[in-house]
């Protein structure tokens, strides 16, 4: 009984930091969170510890830097806001493991020249469906990052 009380009380103390995945969150909502993490620089070494990637800003997704150890990641352009991101297709890759591929379009301004452009890209991920993992990792994990590196304008260094 006392163990149970401890667990209850410690969960109460930490509830502000534990991740969660809302029960009515759609695949598109998870994808949007993941795209926001991408546009906040999750693949860029120089964005480590940046406010844009603060865990507080991602209550449904564990933020872990995933920069390359081999190839340079070059920022191709900047995005005004998340309103410029539009999901165009949601594909179930493997229902057994709850993996998905989401295609999306982004309006952005090119780093070189500053011209406006729109690109299509995709992100692949899987979902955590059990509460213990959701409290650690949030709603899911990325399997394949988008190809193009774009940054939200307010995340510029």
């Amino acid at each position, binding site marked *: *009984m*006392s*163990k149970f*009380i*401890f*667990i*209850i*009380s*410690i*969960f*109460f*103390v*930490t509830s*502000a*930091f*534990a*991740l969660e*995945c*809302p*029960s*009515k*969150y*759609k*695949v*598109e909502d*998870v994808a949007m969170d993941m795209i926001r993490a991408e546009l906040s620089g999750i693949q860029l*070494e*120089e964005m480590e510890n940046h406010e844009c990637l603060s865990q507080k800003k991602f209550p449904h997704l*564990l933020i*872990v830097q*995933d920069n*390359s*150890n*081999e*190839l*340079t990641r*070059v920022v191709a352009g900047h995005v005004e806001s998340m309103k410029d991101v539009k*999901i165009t*297709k*949601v594909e179930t890759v*493997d229902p057994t*493991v*709850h*993996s998905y591929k989401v295609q999306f379009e982004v309006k952005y301004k090119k780093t070189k020249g500053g011209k406006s452009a729109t690109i299509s890209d995709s992100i*692949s*991920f*899987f*979902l955590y*469906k*059990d*509460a*213990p*993992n*959701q409290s*650690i*990792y949030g709603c899911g994990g*990325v*399997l*394949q*990052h988008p190809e193009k590196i774009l940054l939200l304008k307010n995340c510029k260094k």
Partner: protein
Amino acid sequence: MSMLVISCNQQDYKPPSVDEMIEQDLNNADREERLRELGENEEVIKKMTNNYKTLPTVHEVTERINEVTDPPVVPCDPSTVHREETITETTGDDGSNENVVPDVVEEIVAVEPIPLHPAARGARKLLASFYQSCKAIDLPIEDGAETLKGVLVGDSIDGQSGLQGGKIRKITNLDAFVDSHRVLSELKKDENYPGPQCKDATKQPPLFAYASRKYPTRSTGEFKIFSKGGGITRSSPPASGIDCSSFVSVALASQGLKMSKEQTGFRDMTTRSLKTQAAKSNSCIENAKVSPNEPLKAGDIINVATTHTVIIDSVGKDPLGVEKYAAAGNCNAISPKDFNFTYVHSGAIRNSYGPSRVKANYHRSGVMWNNLAVMAKRLCHEKVSGNNGRRDSRLSGMNENFGLLRHKSEDPECISDKKYKIEGQQCIDGCENTDKDFQNV
């Protein structure tokens, strides 16, 4: 557009309040004993929260819960024994909330050291050579490892830019760097370090270095590893730099492991060329065949083209959690925290460690580890269905750039008589742990 709903299926269960539970408990049991336990709990919470001023991390909470709920640990020497785990309480695998409660029990089995796979042997020898000590293998990076201090990373430092548009690094405070380092801080304390014929790695530490590659010299055919390469500034104190795929290339070459059957001389690989090489007919590396009972082996190379590559050097019991979660009928709950193996690599881990041995369950996320978790989930489902046969490791739902690669070291055409020497190798040639795996994962 699909409108799938992610449902956690949380029940409309309203637990009793803590006050209600305490009251009920105190009425039913020994009041003094309960009050003492509650007092102890309060002390622990006070300590973890700095007297309710800060919030503990999820990791701290998890550790504390495990501490409270786990059965007492039987003291034993971790290098010679391992514990058997069995699942005693399970729920379904339908995507609903699932709680697996592993019950750690009983069986203590002596583990004999086993000879290392040549790829794992090469990785360990290279690692130990960088540090000039066998201890580098016994001190893996694990959960809670400190972030390195005294190192600067930038696009350009002291007027010098990184190679190929990558980052460049400089050690700015050697003492801070060494003191915050998992291996070097221990070597610094060791009166017998450095040994005879050995360099002092606390004065020239290994460091992750973007695009720093190592090649054998024409004169001696030895890999010169004690150099900065282009990923570390000239203005930095001495350091030994290497990137991930160069580390793998040198490790394999040091054991005479060829990339293709007709290869002569050294072949320097990148994460992209490792991927393409595995698909060739004359190749000496292939996409591994895996099974639920043997999802990976020591010596396997985990590779994500364009991103990172590592060599697995030691595999523990149930290395991906397949057995445990299949028994629980709970396959989709497998995550990187369930991994039970170690790998050796050079990576930008914990602010630029570079050459290091790492416990895989240190990782919480990232493309490499998420894809491995998906592979484990797929194998777990196969096991539940009774399909225990071997299959290609490229399973559906995984990133096409991800590969679990295996060297065909049993094929004589894939082994060269020429084993390239590593600079400083004579210092660590007597290390037992570079030839044998003591399975202290």
